């Protein structure tokens, strides 16, 4: 690609392929139904690799909920769920899914199919378990949940070890459960192949992220917000690896030619939390202030292999044990102390000027601790932070004007700091 072809202010060409790959994911789900093959709903954070390894086609309703939001259906679906008695204050992903199911929405609107079984875990939130309980009862399908102990700031190694053991034992139980429900056996060779693909996929994503350290940053949220979906819907398949490699190559070319995702990069930001899926264009507004988001813990979190104890050899030789360890140690569930440390390191490495923290009304586990995270970053490390109140899937909870005014003032603060 020549320099002339490399343009700023647009999505990577490779990212355009995301639509196709996600389309094929949905087709694979339809195909599984046509062929009467086993399917499963899975919550994010659950070991989707095991499903692929056991010949079960996964579906992630969270992913579908974002499709509803992007297609502007989420508000309607949420209100349908509220009519069924689910509170205004409950998770908007959950309610979007309830509304989509009750409306019998097709996949392009964020609908989902009745699965053979459901797999949830409380690693990220309790909601996941409650959500699947609601829907498993509705569809009358079996539901397996993985109970993941919570690592807090003073958890010691002794505890960490028996936490890991508990998860490992449950994962082996899961293998039995899947076999009982589907008749499919766990095949170690297949598991190795799936795990290797999952590892490779995550590593390329992490390499893409490393490129974002460059000034100007070659990739914006136009590529990462949507780009993350294969990480949690298709870990274990080869196809998304090819897509990510293309993304990497194109981004690397931008870096080599000194071209940024933003024509004039002045402010480098971090965005903590889940984006507003119903208004992704909103993030484009940042460009008017020459600001670009160069790191989102949320989209990085799902490249799960970031625990230095979990090496490739370990993952390939003991996939179940490695999976258990990973479920205790990824970005989205860090305890407050680790969270502060990781944020500080990231701000330094990615040369970030300021942090936007999304107080997501739908995701209380994520927004809990946000105020103290902000306090630490500002007081201990002099990192400017701004908390914005909104919701990931419920457009009723975003006051766009108010948030824009807040961000505008925040950018002014960053500008003044730069002039000093």
């Amino acid at each position, binding site marked *: 690609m020549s320099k002339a072809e490399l343009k700023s202010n647009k999505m990577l060409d490779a990212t355009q392929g995301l639509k196709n790959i996600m389309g094929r994911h949905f087709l694979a789900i339809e195909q599984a139904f046509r062929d009467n093959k086993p399917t499963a709903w899975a919550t994010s954070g659950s070991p989707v690799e095991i499903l692929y390894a056991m010949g079960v086609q996964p579906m992630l309703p969270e992913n579908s909920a974002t499709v509803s939001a992007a297609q502007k259906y989420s508000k309607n679906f949420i209100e349908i769920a509220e009519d069924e*008695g689910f509170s205004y204050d409950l998770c908007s992903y959950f309610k979007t899914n309830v509304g989509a199911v009750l409306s019998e929405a097709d996949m392009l609107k964020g609908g989902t199919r009745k699965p053979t079984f459901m797999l949830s875990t409380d690693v990220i939130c309790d909601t996941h378990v409650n959500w699947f*309980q609601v829907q498993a009862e509705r569809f009358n399908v079996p539901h397996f949940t993985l109970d993941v102990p919570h690592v807090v700031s003073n958890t010691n190694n002794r505890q960490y070890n028996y936490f890991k053991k*508990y998860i490992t*034992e449950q994962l082996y139980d899961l293998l039995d459960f899947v076999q009982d429900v589907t008749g499919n056996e766990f095949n170690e060779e297949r598991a190795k192949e799936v795990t290797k693909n999952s590892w490779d996929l995550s590593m390329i994503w992490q390499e893409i992220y490393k490129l974002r350290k460059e000034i100007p940053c070659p990739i914006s949220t136009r590529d990462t917000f949507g780009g993350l979906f294969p990480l949690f819907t298709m870990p274990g398949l080869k196809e998304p690896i090819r897509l990510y490699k293309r993304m990497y190559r194109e981004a690397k070319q931008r870096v080599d030619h000194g071209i940024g995702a933003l024509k004039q990069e002045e402010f480098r930001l971090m965005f903590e939390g889940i984006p507003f899926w119903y208004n992704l264009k909103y993030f484009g507004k940042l460009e008017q202030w020459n600001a670009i988001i160069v790191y989102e813990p949320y989209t990085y979190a799902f490249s799960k292999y970031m625990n230095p104890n979990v090496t490739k050899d370990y993952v390939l030789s003991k996939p179940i044990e490695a999976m258990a360890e990973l479920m205790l140690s990824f970005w989205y569930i860090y305890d407050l102390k680790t969270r502060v440390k990781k944020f500080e390191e990231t701000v330094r490495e990615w040369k970030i000027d300021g942090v936007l923290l999304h107080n997501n009304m739908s995701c209380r586990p994520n927004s809990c601790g946000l105020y103290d995270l902000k306090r630490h970053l500002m007081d201990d490390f002099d990192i400017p932070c701004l908390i914005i109140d909104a919701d990931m899937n419920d457009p009723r909870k975003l006051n766009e004007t108010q948030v824009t005014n807040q961000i505008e003032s925040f950018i002014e603060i960053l500008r003044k700091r730069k002039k000093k």
Partner: protein
Amino acid sequence: MKKIGIIDSGVETPEEIILAAGFTPYRFFGDPTIQPDKANEHIPATHCLWTRNLLEQALNGLDSDIVGIISSHGCDRTNREFDIWLEFINQDFMFFLNSPRKRDDLALKFFVSDINELITQLKEHYNVQITNEKLKDSIKKMNQIRKLLKEISEFRSKMILKGSEFHAIVKSVQRIDKDEVLKTLKLKLDELKKTKPFESNTMKKVLLTGSDIDDTEFIKYLEELGFHVIIDDLCVGTKYFWDIVNEDEDPILALANYHLNKPIYSTKFPSYERFDVLKNLLDTYEVDGVINIAQKFCEPILYDHPYLKKKFNEIGIPYLFVEVTYNRESYKQLSTRFSAFAEII
């Protein structure tokens, strides 16, 4: 005696261990007369008001007798807020007990490990001995308390004991010296045995379920509106004493078994089994209706409500669901809904 504070939305902290270590268990309750001004600097206002209330009290300063805190895994709130307590509440000893969400054999094994870890840390920190003998003695004592509470609880359905009075008893049991508790409960039982039923013709008999309701004034408020809570399914209620711990088993295993097998709360999996618990109570106690109270932002209760509503409709039991803000002023705004329900039943 020195106390160990307990943060627990599902009464799953084995008090016997605290007793065996030589401390008095002291469960934290909310104070609906205060606003969580300081806590709001740590936790967004769209999060559980009850846990913010507990944090507010702690930020204002805890009783000097409290020398440590154990927080047990309930919902997402108790998990995530523990780190805030750890950083901002000045206590040398703080332990997060990962009471499991599931209740199968693996969960039991895990819970035993976590209880053992709690014991190890208590021993190391306070230089105390927690022997099996001491644990067994504590279990016996707590079982006596549980049995007495269960016996006293029955006087509610005999229309001798008011629901609010019983609620206050269950609360105080979780905060004061257990020997004192035993004496008080025995006296109360003797007194109740001699008391005649009160006039109850116009009162609506209800089963109260929902979030951890710890404000006795709320129960009094229901009574003023003409309801009588003859039985409940609450953590400041039957969940605290319904079953007893097996005294013949290894004490730690017995404690883990007890907590995993007692009537399920909405924070556990599968929480829909809470309906079966309620149904059993309905089979035993003749009530006019069920009232389900969700504290504002109490997710476990909010998720279960539509299912419970459906199930109660199926069996033809009048059911009222109300979201309550943890603030006494807000109770008054609910009187129309409660009164309408009283009319229906």
